[in-house]
């Protein structure tokens, strides 16, 4: 096994816990599910802290919609949580969960 092999194994595990890819051989699928839920929960808490307005506007649907967004948009290396929060707010608008008028010019992320 080489550094590349370790990198590939780590990449496969992250794709499973962050993006719903197949569980790599040898891992307990139930434990991988628990890990995925824990990582999603942490990400959701941070995004809510950064942009409580979007979370509040979505109300009871926030958690479910954030999970849907997160599955399709795993965080990229080098990205910031602030960008994640802005991307989620944009996603919510694009998918019709929030009216576009809500986005005000002075909150626009650069």
């Amino acid at each position, binding site marked *: 096994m080489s550094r590349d092999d370790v990198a590939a194994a*780590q990449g496969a*595990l992250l794709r499973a816990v962050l993006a719903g890819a197949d569980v790599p051989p*040898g891992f307990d699928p139930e434990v*991988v599910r*628990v890990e995925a839920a824990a990582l999603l929960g942490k990400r959701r808490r941070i995004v809510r802290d950064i942009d409580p307005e979007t979370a509040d506007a979505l109300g009871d649907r926030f958690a479910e919609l954030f999970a849907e967004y997160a599955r399709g948009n*795993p965080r990229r290396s080098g990205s910031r949580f602030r960008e994640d929060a802005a991307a989620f707010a944009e996603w919510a608008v694009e998918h019709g969960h929030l009216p576009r008028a809500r986005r005000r010019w002075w909150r626009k992320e650069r």
Partner: protein
Amino acid sequence: MGEHLGVGIGWRSEIDLTVERMQGVDFVEVVAENIHRDHLPESLRVLRARGLPVLPHAVSLSLGGAEPLDTDRVEHLAAVADLLDAPLVSDHVCFVRAGGLDSGHLMPVPRTRDALEVLVANVTEARSILGRPLALENIAALLEWPDAELTEARFLRELVERTDCLLLVDVANMWANAKNLGADPVALLDGLPLERLAYVHVAGGMEVDGVYHDTHAHAVPQGVLDLLGELCDRVRPPGVLLERDDHYPADTVLADELAAIRAVVDR
């Protein structure tokens, strides 16, 4: 063994005044990624002016990651350490980035020879940039890699001995791994090179659906203090630090937790 630190608490901007006012705080730790490399928050300047050690603690170096080390992050940690005139810095034995993705949290590495080689190489490179002692922390994991070749104690021992690092022992993480993975925390304490101990982390958590989550947002369980006691039976720790990151309780509750920690260390 690291230099004497005493009892401390994790400095967070949400509790900066609490930490400044609290009795019995001998040192603090700050998350390096939350600090600008060219200027300190006023509260940390106040603490430094009093002579309190402020130790930068990194969470994003991904020292166990098999991709090339992100030296910008290491340089940031070094710059923050310079700004704080810190005697040592720390990060975790984990990876956070792989395959272009960022987990946003500390992920365990496989306990294999190959993964150990990756860590040794990354830590050696990081140390050459940092130019000051680096302490490595054991993490709490919810999952385990298959086909481990080394025990956690052996893995950590070889890592810190080959890279000449210090140990940051988190007894709350050991407690979590005992609950969730069936790990034996006493065997881990017995196998670790505690003569390299820099300081100890203590934190609280909570159990949800049979899984213990090391949240840093709940009270410190008695089991974690008991493990601290086990550690103190083996070595007098240079420092013990309480980590609290969310759902901040009343100042008196935090002060009581620090007092409980001190009682275990001093008994």
